């Protein structure tokens, strides 16, 4: 179960949101307006099991998320879920990867201290002996123009929320 975010971890003034994570229930998150630029040349790599529980993360994941490795391994990937991300944006992800396909998308991720960073994410199912045993996700630096387009798109999707999608978050 993901813990609520704690004000002591957050730098500066913040807004409080309550997001509902599928299968996990509500989580209180604290967000600031600070954007952390994605570092040039790095890839954030993580793996999860089929339920979205993190089983592996590289140093870039730790550096960008602001969490310690011990806090990440065993936690749900939705620990990064930012309230500005529409739930619908993840529907395609789960539909695709559960069907054994590759998914790409632009994602605004939440850091432990309430700031955020944008990524271009690719998720692929890990198939072993014909069975999906988990997922590998690689995040890389998105262009500012793609971030701008995603901000607009996600604003619209947020307004339309309340749709039928009740699946798990990324």
């Amino acid at each position, binding site marked *: 179960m993901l813990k609520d975010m704690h004000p002591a971890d957050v730098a500066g003034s913040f807004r409080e949101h309550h997001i509902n994570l599928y299968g996990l229930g509500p989580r209180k998150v604290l967000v600031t307006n600070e954007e952390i630029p994605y570092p*040039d040349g790095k890839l954030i790599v993580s793996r999860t099991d089929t339920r979205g529980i993190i089983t592996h993360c590289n140093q870039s994941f730790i550096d960008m998320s602001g969490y310690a490795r011990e806090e990440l391994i065993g936690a749900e990937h939705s620990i990064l879920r930012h309230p500005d991300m529409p739930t619908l944006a993840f529907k395609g992800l789960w539909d695709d990867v559960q069907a054994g396909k590759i998914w790409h998308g632009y994602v605004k991720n939440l850091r432990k201290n309430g700031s955020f960073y944008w990524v271009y994410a690719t998720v*692929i199912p890990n198939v072993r002996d014909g069975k999906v045993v988990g997922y590998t996700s690689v995040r890389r*630096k998105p262009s500012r123009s*793609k971030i701008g387009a995603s901000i607009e798109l996600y604003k619209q999707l947020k307004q339309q929320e309340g749709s039928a999608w009740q699946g798990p978050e990324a």
Partner: protein
Amino acid sequence: METVHQLTVSPDFTPDHISGWYVFNTWLQRNLGLHIHLEMYDSFEAQRQAIQADRVDMIYANPYDASMLVREKGFRAVARPLGIADECVIVVPAESTVQHVEDLQPGARVASTDDPDIRLVGMIMLEAADLHKGNIESVPVDGYVLVAKALLQGRADVGFFLKDAWDGLSNAVRKQLRPLVTSQISDIQHAFLVGPHLAGSVEDIQGLLVRMGEIEKGAGVLESLGFQGWEALDHEETEFMIDLMDTLKAE
């Protein structure tokens, strides 16, 4: 007649280590008791044709090809070198006005070799400038020295280098060029793979490589290859690297 097994090396090897691979071949042959012929292909295409024709039995492969060798040709990855990672350096002429990747514009002339993983990682790093293979002008060249030459002669705006190759350029050349960004991926590495014809020798080969530094003359061979040693790769580690390459190759 004794069977001759073919060993080959990804054509992105650095020129300084060519003789090292011949020394390695002799050492491996002696310690395995097999007749091994080292074939050094001068292009990725020529090497791929040999792989498709099932002429290759052992290969020190780049991660891009390793994925194909394991999934399509039944090779087993047995070891990877310690302390060597496949990183890409994006370079511009020293006097270029480009200070950041984001300063590059559509139509940029990009010099690269046919080294598949370096080209892949290089193009990924250009995504931050909204560049992709459809809106750049590709300047293909046959080696990293020629990438540098294309930049110095003004035939390319930007070039991709394997980090080892960039580090190996002379100071005089490097002073006329400027690195913009270096990848820091570290999870992607070359690996030593063994083909299905030698499936029965996989454990012997892995054991020899991992203990190479302790076996007679092994330390000197490692030095001539520029390696600190070899680390065993298990099945799941190989699958992970392939998954990682697949995510990067996906369009």
